[in-house]
């Protein structure tokens, strides 16, 4: 069982990155960008092409992949989301879903349907065991990097003017304008930050799952579910939601069989949302009495 819990922690770390990305975009724009899963895919495929086809060293290739992911997200923001804030949330959600499908279709035209071997940046050296499960350099890198990123982003959100500006931009764009905050620039930073998180997820996930145009599909929905579980309105909550989702999913699979994994975790999510609609640690809205 310990192996399943640890493996769930590793998967949960990936979900946590994606959940945080959803949270950052939502807390800044009040829009859910469902194309974040596809952003992971683009980051992975561009990194792969830069390294394999163009011969760039892997670190340079990752930077190129990250740039592509940032550019994609900024295009999404400029082309659609900046207008969608005024629309109802369902329409906005549908537009991002459609964009995600479009991105996959275009990506298939570029990279085809095969699964490529993504370079393992951190190697596959066995370090120690957790029960029977070998923990490798890749696994430890995943946990350390995700921990650092998550702590860093949490600090930015809570302790810096940028972080507070991002929250303010979602609360009241007019008021932000009055005090001289450039809402457009803040939104662009939020989208870029989400893209960077997606790139990190891509580099950590692709060596395990292989680089292919369906990479984002595997984690996109679960990352969102994890964000909802923890609480979409707070970065920290989304992070814990991701970790809990990964562990819960893996433990369900161990206790009740692989076929029940997804059923149990999503039923649990529905029950939790029934009790706490904003997620386990999400903010609740307060209304003044007078």
């Amino acid at each position, binding site marked *: *069982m310990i*192996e*399943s819990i*640890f*493996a*769930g922690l*590793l*998967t949960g770390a*990936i979900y946590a990155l994606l959940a945080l990305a959803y949270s950052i975009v939502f807390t800044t724009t009040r829009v859910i960008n469902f194309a974040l899963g596809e952003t992971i895919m683009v980051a992975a495929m561009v990194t792969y092409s830069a390294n394999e086809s163009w011969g760039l060293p892997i670190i340079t290739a990752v930077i190129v992949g990250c740039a592509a992911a940032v550019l994609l997200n900024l295009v999404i923001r400029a082309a659609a989301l900046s207008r969608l804030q005024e629309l109802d949330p369902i329409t906005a959600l549908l537009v991002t879903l459609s964009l995600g499908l479009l991105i*996959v*279709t275009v990506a*298939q035209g570029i990279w*085809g*349907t*095969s*699964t*490529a*071997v993504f370079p393992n940046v951190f190697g*596959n050296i066995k370090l120690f065991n957790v029960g*029977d*499960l*070998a923990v*490798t350099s890749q696994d430890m890198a995943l946990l350390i990097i995700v921990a650092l990123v998550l702590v860093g982003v949490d600090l930015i959100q809570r302790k810096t003017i940028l972080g507070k500006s991002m929250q303010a931009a979602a609360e009241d764009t007019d008021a932000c304008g009055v005090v001289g905050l450039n809402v457009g620039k803040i939104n662009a930073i939020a989208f870029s930050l989400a893209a960077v998180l997606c790139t990190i997820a891509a580099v950590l*996930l692709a060596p*395990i*799952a*292989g680089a*292919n145009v*369906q990479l984002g*599909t*595997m*984690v996109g929905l679960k990352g969102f579910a994890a964000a909802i579980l923890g609480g979409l309105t707070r970065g920290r909550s989304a992070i814990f939601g991701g970790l809990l989702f990964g562990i819960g999913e*893996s*433990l*369900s*699979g*161990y206790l009740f*069989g*692989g*076929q029940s*994994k*997804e059923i149990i975790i999503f039923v649990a999510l529905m029950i939790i949302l029934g009790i706490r609609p904003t997620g386990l640690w999400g903010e609740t809205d307060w209304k003044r009495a007078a």
Partner: protein
Amino acid sequence: MTKKITEKILVFLISCSFLLVAGVASAEIKIGMGGIMSGPFAAWGLDGKSGMEMAIEEINANGGIKGEKVVLLARDDQLDTTKAALQAEELIYKEKVIVYFASTITGSAKATVPVAIKAKIPVILAGQQSDITCAWQCVDSKDKNCCNPWVFRFSGTVSQQADAMVIMARDQLKGKRIALMHDNIGYGLEWKADLTKAAAANNMEFVASEMFPLMEIDYTASLSRVKKANPDVIVVGTLGAPAGRIYNTMKKLGMNQPLLLCEAAMELAFRTTAQDMGDGAYVAMTQNSPYDKSNPEFQAFAKKWSQKYGDIGYTDTLLTQPFGFQFYDAMMCLAKVIEAVGKDPEKIREGLENMGPCKGISGVTYVFNKDKHCAMSHLVPQMYQFKNGTVIKPN
């Protein structure tokens, strides 16, 4: 008077031009094909389409069939069975194809095969392995458990492989405690049913039977459960990429039991997902291996394929998987039949039944007759092993 003659001449000339166009249009042999060519399972359609195109290119380069060019009309059904059926109708009734190649995917094949049967057009299953569409043991238009007389299969079937795999696990891999893993889609569920049935027929029982979600990142939980049952062989019925991830997770869990995979693991995704290209894993195949040095013609064909279709992932090392060249073989055998009997669908149907042995590029011989519409049912699947990215007979 002059006006009337002019009118008659005009009508005559217009009629001639229609006849000329119709004549030109009929001077080609139309072959229809349905399949998935986009999305996560696109490789299963594109490999077949590549095989068809390669065969048709060669046929046309040699003058076509009795001087007529062969034209492939392929449709991407996007895994939508309603769309697949409508596309089959369009190909058969509008485009007037004389033979229809059904999708490799069971759901789409189930939707389109009845369309072709109703229209009395021969339908060919070149990569479709499910017994649901065409059981390999009989031919009968009234018995749903048998192949319909209009349906011809050029591939092996799941049940045929399953029968062989349980014996391989027991006899060649010396398994006494065999575990089964399979995915949660129709393909995996069919493997579970057929492997369980085959095990029972051989007085065997699986010590563990574990289903897993197809699009899964981590298999630690599922494999931990299997490990608890202490198996000495693990048999897996799933596609290439999940099989690769299972292979990787087994390594992480220190599980060294022989891993026996179904033919689907021959797709590139297994070797590109698994560490060390899945070195040491076993695979059951009805076809011959493209790495067989004793068949230089096949090796040359496989390399030519990989060069031609390199953009979908094949390389000099990672050569084609069976489904592509089964479509190639099917088209080449079909071409010989059309050459002999002409373009009438009923005659083609009879011609396929009387085709006689047709040797494929891999060296396998396809055989149909009135009571046998599965061309590979006389073959016994063999066990191969992945070694350095190649697929060879184990020692």
